[in-house]
């Protein structure tokens, strides 16, 4: 099961669509709108991979990554973000993220990231 | 660089420079060779700032970086920087600028290799025209404020400025200011007796004498015909009276030579008023009171100063 976290409805739609294209139509995907919802959903369902945006209200991606990794040290979190500054990527990695996809997400960058991490 | 045998590169009427991110010259087109008298082979691989030390290296490097990061052009604004490369201009029609005024565009030439390209466009003529236009406009505005004969201010300017002075005074604890109105005595007789040319000279003389007695913060205006008005800032009624009397005396003492043996003498009548509460925040009323005082001065024999209470 995959978890997609982004406050933008369109971004979630794009992530879902590309996931289906790369992984398969029948893949199970949950969605969350902010970091807090993401943490709660993660604790309930323990998804295989979590795709996380960074800039969100209530709780941002950096916090959410930290919380989730505290809960599950083996958590596989890939950041999908438009904010591609060195500092941001580093901060996300420090908090526990294992990969980074630069928006806009498409089949190529998604496939490439997943295979680099040995997840497909 | 293999660009230097390119026809467009060498015939276009603009300067073209290609630099790497450290600002070393990789290409320098014919236009530049001609205008700077520096051959491409002599400046190739050299840092452009070594040849032109007045170029702000920090700023140019930053612009280069911007252009390579955003992959979009950047501009050197003409408001702030007059030119990138100082090229002296010397033609008969150009009188304003000593150096070519340049319009500069910087763009990415090769993102991988981090090369940028700079276009230099000669904008001197346009700048000249703009400056002349601005100057002409300024002169027009000034002309609309002046009385053509005496070159002192006119009534229109007086109205505009008096409002500002009134506001200023009110914002600053009601610093006092006063108005003096002057009228040349029996002016019609002077005109009829000696002619209009002499009449004009009298008006000019009076204007000059009044101007000599005021400070730069004061306003002297010709209200038409033989009437003048002065606005004295930071001046109460007593001080205004003293100024008015000085002017009256100076005019009384002076004269204008008409023929070898004829001296025309003339005097003014003066009214003085200080802006106060009775004027209901309206300078026109102060002016009226000064006029009433002036009228009294005429009635009691002319060549007098009367104060409005």
């Amino acid at each position, binding site marked *: 099961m995959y978890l997609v976290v982004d406050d*933008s*409805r*369109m*971004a979630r*739609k*794009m992530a879902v*669509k590309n996931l289906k294209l790369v992984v398969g139509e029948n893949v199970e995907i949950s969605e969350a709108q902010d970091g807090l919802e993401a943490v709660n959903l993660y604790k309930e369902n323990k998804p295989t991979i979590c795709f996380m945006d960074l*800039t969100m209200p209530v709780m941002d991606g950096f916090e959410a990554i930290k919380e989730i990794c505290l809960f599950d040290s083996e958590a596989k979190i890939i950041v999908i*973000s*438009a*904010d*591609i*500054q060195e*500092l941001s990527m580093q901060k996300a990695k420090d908090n526990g993220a294992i990969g980074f996809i630069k*928006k*806009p997400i498409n089949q190529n960058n998604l496939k490439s990231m997943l295979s680099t991490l040995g997840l497909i | 660089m293999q660009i230097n045998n390119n026809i467009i590169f060498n015939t276009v009427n603009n300067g073209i420079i290609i630099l790497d991110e450290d600002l070393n010259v990789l290409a320098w087109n014919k236009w530049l060779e001609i205008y700077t008298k520096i051959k491409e082979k002599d400046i190739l691989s050299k840092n452009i700032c070594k040849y032109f030390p007045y170029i702000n290296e*920090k*700023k140019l490097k*930053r*612009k280069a*970086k*911007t252009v390579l*990061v*955003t*992959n*979009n*052009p*950047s*501009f050197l*604004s003409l*408001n*702030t*920087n007059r030119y990138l490369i100082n090229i002296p201009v010397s033609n008969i029609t150009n009188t304003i600028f000593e150096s070519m005024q340049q*319009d500069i*565009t910087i763009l990415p030439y090769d993102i991988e290799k981090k090369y940028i390209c700079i276009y230099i466009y000669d904008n001197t003529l346009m700048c000249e025209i703009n400056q002349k236009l601005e100057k002409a406009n300024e002169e027009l505005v000034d002309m609309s404020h002046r009385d053509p004969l005496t070159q002192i201010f006119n009534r229109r300017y007086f109205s505009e400025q008096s409002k500002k002075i009134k506001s200023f005074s009110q914002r600053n604890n009601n610093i006092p200011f006063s108005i003096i109105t002057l009228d040349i005595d029996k002016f019609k007789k002077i005109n009829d007796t000696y002619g209009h040319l002499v009449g004009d000279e009298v008006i000019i003389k009076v204007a000059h004498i009044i101007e000599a007695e005021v400070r730069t913060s004061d306003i002297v205006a010709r209200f038409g015909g033989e009437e003048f008005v002065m606005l004295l800032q930071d001046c109460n009624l007593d001080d205004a009276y003293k100024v008015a009397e000085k002017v009256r005396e100076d005019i009384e003492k002076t004269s204008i030579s008409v023929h070898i043996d004829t001296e025309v003498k003339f005097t003014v009548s003066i009214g003085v008023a200080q802006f106060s509460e009775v004027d209901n925040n309206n300078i026109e009323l102060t002016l009226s009171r000064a006029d009433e005082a002036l009228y009294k001065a005429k009635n009691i024999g002319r060549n007098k100063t009367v104060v409005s209470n």
Partner: protein
Amino acid sequence: MKNLIELNEDEKDCLQELMNISYGAATAAISEIIGKFATLSIPNIDTISSCDLRKHLNEKLLSKNKYYVSNQLVNGYLAGENIFIIDEISSINLAREFDLSDDEIDENEIKDIILEITNILSSATSGKLASLVDTSISFSAPHITKINSIDEFDKRFEGEYSHVIIISTELNFKEQNIKGELMILTKKESSIFLKKALDNALENL
């Protein structure tokens, strides 16, 4: 008369996401150029008429501060104008971020830096937006003025921008106290083009 340029919910969401991506690119560009960490707030999108534009601008220039306003024309299918508004104090702080020492900072230097930021923001945002909807644009050199109130704005705004899409975002360097706003104004034809392009993008979703 119905405003042709009204964006529906889906189109707004789509534009919002495209702008998020564009602004991400802009932020990264700025931080790379000046070597500091920057944030651009999530852009706010509005479709308004010209009298609302005046009101909108009025709100931005509320306080007694002096403001610098720079504008840059955008040419192509997404033709319009980008306007960047920044107050005097933020401008000085911005100049410091560009590594200018206090005695180097004068009116001309500040204006130059604001023009640069405008250019960077413009190209990073409009430029990115254009590429995301598969079209090309070019920019004219930006211009800058210092103003005290909305009345100093050119009257032509009301005519040119009868139907506008305003995308406004804050450029924020919190610690350095720099706050500026970028507005992307589109003219009628470009608004229509944009709407179509968004619909296209949505269909391919």
